[in-house]
């Protein structure tokens, strides 16, 4: 992946950190020194000829916003003038953002050794620190509706680097605005951002219990004897760690337990200890037994229909960490501090959970998995598959792609592996542009049943060419697979194709290592005819394609339900 670095200082020091082993490896190219605005506005400048996938535009606040240079000179500056210049710069960024799939913009910072006006540093109208805060806030607001532009918090990098963040010597010797630690932090955030945009965020945290989630061995001391909460530093730190884990669930990351313990004793602690922040319903699954943890993780991931590359495993025991790392190399096993007071910090430092958006579906994900447990209980008690499906009370709502559902639709497109016909990965901007074409239609599907509202969990798109409607995307979250939603989506696709005047619907399967389930569905559950090429699956639109009788379908674009 190629990244173009556009800066008004010497930014070459960032290149080696972008090229390091951490995924994705990036090959840096550099725009001409201090030519930021011309490079942003003019796509014919030679540095664009290498067709970079990504750009990073990193500027000094006093060179881009001239009014800020006047603030630094202690001249009176109207805040409106300052913000107008920020808006003008944002417009330049928007222009350049059309040339790349993602454009990263580190926020403006100022060297910490400069005390500015001291007591007046934050005074509106004169304070440089006040002006800088307003400028960064304005920039964030100005690019908020530009899906390809992502602001990065350079203030955090500078704070992490401490005194080595900036140096007048580096500046005077080489016009180098930042030290290597800032560049290292920047590269890590740029890579985390790209993983987020590409839907590669980790989704599941698998936790050990004893001395990880609480202090002590529950099998030895019982839940009453655990070190958790209270007024001890250690007890407080375990509560803080649990709170940090709980916060992750609000971002769509789910939690599970893999612990060598007696299940009844461990669950009793989770249910009964008064200081537990995480309760049974905060965990989507668990394996509490005396078996190998790597095997338990593999079995748990399979139950949840996730991939091992979605998993983070946290355990205080270095031997268990080494075993899981060795047996399941796709699982992220972070080194974990011996000092238990640092658990919360270690979790907060992980850069593997970043996402480009957080949807309502993300926030409700834990609840969805818990509902699945309840649903499974109904399934066990039902006399037949038909009775089970009827008991679910499934409703599928179909709607066209629009501005409000675009972020979730693109998130689904980029994160779904198993039921994904073509597995194409596009940014919001790219998908919006594709959907805007007259020949293309995108439908999204919201699913709910008596147990849960799954939200937007399906996506289908058509590209019409003459009398043929090609299914470009057929994507369904694994959380609703196998309940008739797949056929409901095909029902909507066929009706949409009919409305567009197509004579047949053609779906071509593009194999990946993980999307076998979509082929199985088309082969065994779709009733589409296969001509073996690709293979391709075909439906003659003159024939009705009905939704399953147990599904209540709403909002199908035309035709009969």
């Amino acid at each position: 992946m190629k990244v173009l670095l556009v800066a008004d200082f010497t930014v070459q020091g960032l290149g080696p950190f972008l090229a390091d082993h951490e995924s994705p490896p990036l090959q840096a190219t550099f725009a001409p020194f201090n030519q930021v605005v011309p490079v942003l506005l003019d796509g014919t400048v030679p540095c664009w000829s290498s067709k970079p996938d990504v750009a990073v535009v990193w500027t000094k606040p006093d060179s881009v916003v001239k009014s800020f240079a006047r603030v630094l000179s202690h001249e009176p500056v109207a805040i409106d003038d300052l913000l107008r210049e920020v808006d003008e710069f944002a417009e330049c960024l928007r222009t350049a953002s059309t040339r790349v799939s993602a454009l990263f913009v580190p926020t403006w910072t100022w060297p910490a050794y400069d005390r500015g006006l001291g007591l007046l540093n934050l005074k509106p109208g004169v304070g440089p620190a006040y002006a800088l805060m307003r400028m960064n806030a304005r920039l964030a607001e100005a690019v908020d509706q530009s899906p390809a532009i992502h602001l990065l918090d350079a203030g955090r990098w500078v704070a992490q680097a401490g005194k080595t963040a900036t140096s007048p010597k580096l500046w005077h010797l080489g016009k180098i605005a930042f030290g290597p630690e800032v560049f290292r932090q920047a590269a890590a955030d740029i890579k985390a951002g790209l993983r987020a945009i590409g839907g590669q965020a980790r989704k599941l945290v698998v936790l050990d219990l004893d001395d990880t989630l609480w202090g002590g061995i529950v099998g030895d001391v019982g839940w009453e004897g655990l070190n958790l909460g209270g007024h001890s530093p250690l007890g407080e730190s375990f509560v803080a760690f649990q709170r940090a884990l709980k916060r992750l669930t609000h971002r769509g990351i789910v939690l599970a337990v893999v612990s060598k313990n007696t299940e009844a004793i461990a669950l009793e602690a989770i249910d009964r200890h008064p200081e537990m922040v995480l309760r049974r319903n905060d965990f989507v699954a668990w394996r509490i037994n005396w078996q190998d943890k790597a095997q338990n993780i593999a079995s748990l991931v399979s139950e949840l229909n996730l991939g091992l590359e979605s998993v983070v495993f946290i355990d205080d025991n270095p031997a268990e960490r080494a075993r899981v790392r060795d047996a399941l190399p796709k699982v992220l096993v972070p080194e974990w501090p011996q000092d238990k007071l640092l658990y919360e910090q270690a979790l907060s430092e992980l850069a593997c959970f970043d996402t480009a958006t957080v949807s309502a579906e993300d926030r409700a994900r834990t609840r969805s998995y818990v509902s699945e447990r309840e649903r499974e209980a109904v399934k066990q008690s039902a006399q037949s598959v038909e009775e089970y499906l009827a008991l679910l009370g499934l409703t599928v709502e179909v709607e066209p792609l629009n501005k409000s559902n675009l972020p979730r639709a693109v998130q689904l497109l980029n994160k779904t592996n198993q039921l994904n016909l073509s597995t194409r990965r596009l940014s919001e901007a790219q998908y919006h542009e594709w959907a805007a074409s007259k020949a293309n239609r995108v439908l999204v599907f919201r699913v709910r049943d008596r147990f849960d509202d799954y939200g937007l969990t399906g996506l289908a798109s058509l590209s019409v060419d003459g009398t043929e409607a090609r299914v470009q995307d057929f994507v369904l979250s694994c959380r609703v697979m196998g309940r008739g939603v797949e056929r409901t989506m095909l029902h909507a696709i066929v009706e949409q194709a009919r409305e567009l005047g197509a004579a047949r619907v053609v779906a071509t399967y593009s194999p990946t290592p993980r999307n076998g389930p979509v082929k199985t569905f088309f082969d065994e559950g779709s009733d589409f005819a296969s001509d073996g090429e690709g293979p391709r699956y075909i439906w003659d639109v003159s024939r009705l394609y009905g939704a399953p009788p147990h599904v209540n379908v709403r909002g199908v674009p035309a035709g009969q339900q």
Partner: protein
Amino acid sequence: MNEDEIRKAVLESVKTVAPDAGPVGNDTYLTGSEAVLDSVGFVTLLVDLEGRLGNGVDLSTSFMEYDGADEASSPFRTVDSLAAHIQRLASTH
């Protein structure tokens, strides 16, 4: 700080500034055509080293004052020669 400690600081600094440099040893070139650093990386290395070594070693000024006439005998050429140069600067300080 003895020369071994200084050499260790130089090696750590090279790895910090150039994480893509590959294996770095005492004979690793820091300047010239075989150097693991470009000119920006070398300047950054000097300033980073000044921070690691503390007050009293003004490497960047020493570099600016160096006439560079003979690359083969440059004190900035390798990890070893730079460590020896820093030791000399520290002892004359």
